[in-house]
């Protein structure tokens, strides 16, 4: 075969225009960005008392001195009583930092100091190694749980009335968490409790 002279190959442009591809990918990214929820909803774990345990032995008598009864009334009203509800007086308070939280913190001062100490210790031991971090965190959680359930923390009985809102209940449960109270229970609201509230309101009006 003879050479057919100069077969002139045309220089091809090897560049591909990426602009349409970028356009399309931009669209896809926008779509995924708008459709995703990166934040998972938070949740609060709760264990309600069971109705089958009527065994006398299983029932633990709450020590009156350490018991705090919280009544949730209508229109965001909160009433609390430290001690025995039938003898000690109820007082009105409010939700939030200066109201019920201050009272609970005062009741739980010893445990809160311990929690703070624990937190400081945990912060000191902060490590960048994920394994150690995990181990520390587990130890921290266990210690926190122990403090929360120790004898020093008050027992809180929450009695929401039918007029209280779900938001009210969540605020109170939140306070339990903020004040590191591990022993709390949500109980029934009866005529007796309504009577306490009426007494507080009546007393307030008379003053």
């Amino acid at each position: 075969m003879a050479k057919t002279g100069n077969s002139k190959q045309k220089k091809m442009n090897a560049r591909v225009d990426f602009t349409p591809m970028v356009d399309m990918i931009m669209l896809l990214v926008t779509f995924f960005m708008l459709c995703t929820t990166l934040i998972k909803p938070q949740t609060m774990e709760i264990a309600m008392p069971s109705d089958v345990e009527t065994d006398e032995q299983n029932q633990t008598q709450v020590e009156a001195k350490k018991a705090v009864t919280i009544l949730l009334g209508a229109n965001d009203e909160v009433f609390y009583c430290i001690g025995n509800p039938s003898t000690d007086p109820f007082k009105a308070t409010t939700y939030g930092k200066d109201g019920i939280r201050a009272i609970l913190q005062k009741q739980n001062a010893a445990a809160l100091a311990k929690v703070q100490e624990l937190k400081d210790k945990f912060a000191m031991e902060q490590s960048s190694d994920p394994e150690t971090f995990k181990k520390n965190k587990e130890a921290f959680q266990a210690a926190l749980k122990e403090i929360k359930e120790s004898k020093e923390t008050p027992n809180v009985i929450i009695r929401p009335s039918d007029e209280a809102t779900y938001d009210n209940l969540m605020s109170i449960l939140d306070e339990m968490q903020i004040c590191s109270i591990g022993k709390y229970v949500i109980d029934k609201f009866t005529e007796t409790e309504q009577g306490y509230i009426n007494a507080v309101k009546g007393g307030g009006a008379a003053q």
Partner: protein
Amino acid sequence: MGRFKIKKQDTFIDMTPMSDVMVLLLTFFMLTATFVKDEPVKVVAPGSVSEIKIPETNLLTIFIDKSGKVFMNMDSPAGMDKLVKEMKKSHGLRLSAEETKAFVQVPMFGTKKSALSSWLKLESAERNTFLNEDAKAGIPCDSTNDELKDWVGAARAACGQDMGIAIKADKHMSYAVIKRVMDSLRSIHENRYNLITALKNEE
């Protein structure tokens, strides 16, 4: 005079690095995507400082909207399928094969057992309007007719002990309704559940 020779500039911008970055971003979003669940009934959860995340799989969610109606869903179609089979078996729910298929796909349900079949016959948009507006919507949950108990019991039987129960209630809801739901859960010995909240900072 020399002639000006304007050099022909190449206006072509190299898009390759940009395309690289975009593909990376796209991959990231695709892999982390958990799609917003379609919730036909709007429920505003109360804020809380709790930071525990909700379990992702095998979760039964009970919704309580602001008018006090109760709805339910399972997190996956497979769960819904197990639930409806169990309901048919032990609580005499009557659904045709086609309705069962529709039921598995619904994002949320909540009608009386007797009305479920006719509700499933509706178009998807009509179903949502029914849930939102009809006074008869919602799973009955009171002392005379407690169907919620049956549903939760069936879900527990169908999905096993690992199934989590979450309650998502509207924050303006009165406690009386929550109490009814909690009592009904208590009567079937379901005493551990999650309350879904939105994140709020400690004041």
